[in-house]
């Protein structure tokens, strides 16, 4: 219930902003209609936006900071080239170990829209595929040594030994995703996607493991799967390339 309130606040907070955008965009929308009548084809549309979840989470969670830019480009009516670029900085207490994962990632792939729109509507229910890679570093802040005897008091190791930075790490993975994008106004879209990540390759940090990879999320010891999520607000720019491809 509390979460719902937060979402409502966010959406209502954005609506005055978005309606002003929509007005600005009216001219472009008209252009698009004319383009459609001229060629019978939709213009190439570049949609760019941001993820709202990560900055919001950064506000309420001191141990998290993150930002993600999203974009897609229509190739045909239902196929889009899609991309996400983001950064994350997150501190996690994982069992006995406290560590910070910091880094950036890029995800590139395609989305396929399965939703049949009525004329004039442009909503998406899509599935997609991404190739993703990260460049990150891990820092072990402190840990409790694993011991079966607790004769002496357990002492936190906060410096030296196995604490410290593991720089220059990277990972590659695939993402299978499903999501929706809803057209709020002329060119403004709100959407979310759920992602199933499959880790393909990683370089293992010295005397530690990639317990968390920015962009991928938590990595478990048992399997190579991870899950992801984003909640986006994006703006579409319909445009045509300078060259006219259609003959008169």
């Amino acid at each position: 219930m509390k979460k719902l309130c937060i979402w409502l606040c966010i959406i209502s907070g954005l609506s005055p902003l978005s309606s002003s955008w929509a007005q600005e965009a009216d001219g472009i929308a008209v252009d698009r209609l004319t383009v459609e009548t001229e060629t019978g084809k939709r213009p190439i549309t570049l949609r760019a936006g941001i993820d709202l979840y990560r900055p919001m989470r950064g506000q309420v969670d001191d141990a998290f900071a993150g930002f993600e830019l999203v974009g897609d480009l229509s190739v045909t009516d239902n196929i889009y080239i899609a991309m996400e670029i983001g950064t994350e900085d997150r501190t996690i207490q994982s069992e006995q170990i406290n560590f910070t994962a910091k880094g950036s990632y890029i995800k590139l792939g395609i989305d396929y829209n399965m939703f049949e729109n009525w004329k004039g509507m442009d909503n998406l229910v899509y599935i997609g595929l991404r190739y993703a890679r990260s460049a990150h570093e891990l820092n072990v802040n402190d840990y409790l040594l694993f011991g079966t005897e607790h004769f002496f008091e357990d002492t936190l190791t906060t410096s030296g030994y196995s604490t410290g930075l593991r720089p220059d790490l990277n990972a590659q993975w695939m993402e299978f995703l499903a999501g929706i994008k809803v057209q709020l106004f002329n060119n403004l879209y709100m959407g979310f996607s759920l992602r199933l990540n499959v880790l393909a390759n990683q370089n293992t940090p010295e005397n530690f493991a990639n317990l968390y990879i920015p962009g991928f999320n938590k990595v478990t010891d048992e399997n190579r799967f991870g899950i992801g999520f984003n909640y986006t607000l994006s703006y579409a720019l319909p445009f045509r390339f300078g060259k006219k491809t259609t003959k008169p």
Partner: protein
Amino acid sequence: MKSLPTIFLTLLASWLIFSCEKDDICLEGTQGTPRLIIKFYDAENPEVLKTVSGLQVRALSIDSIIPLSDPLSIPLQIDQSFTEFEVIKNASSETESQTTVQFNYDRWDEYVNRACGFRGHFILNEQSVAQKDPTNSWILGFQVLKDTISNEETVHLALYH
């Protein structure tokens, strides 16, 4: 293309399944930070084991007696590079004899897994065993059998009396 909604639903379902996090449990029997394993030998006949009657080992920093086991397993402190023990023979009897022994070591920590975290290894350094008053001690000598303490399966130190 009819199968697309199925793909969509499958993705959704698997997302839900993988979003349920399993608890990380460090499996029992995983070797943790090891203790120092000691055996007592006869000083006159160094090949022969010789039990210590009425043995008592007290950790001086917390003034507490360690539980006896065979072989003697001594926990080492991880917040400093030495641990002091008072080793008593014939405890609570007229012939009680005591000596203070200090073990000196370095430590390095090895990553095990997500659930268990790091475990320690000790390396006995040059002054591995130091006695406060060796001339009046009932422990007449020692020999380091294995200076790297990584598990509790081998004996690391022999004490002669």
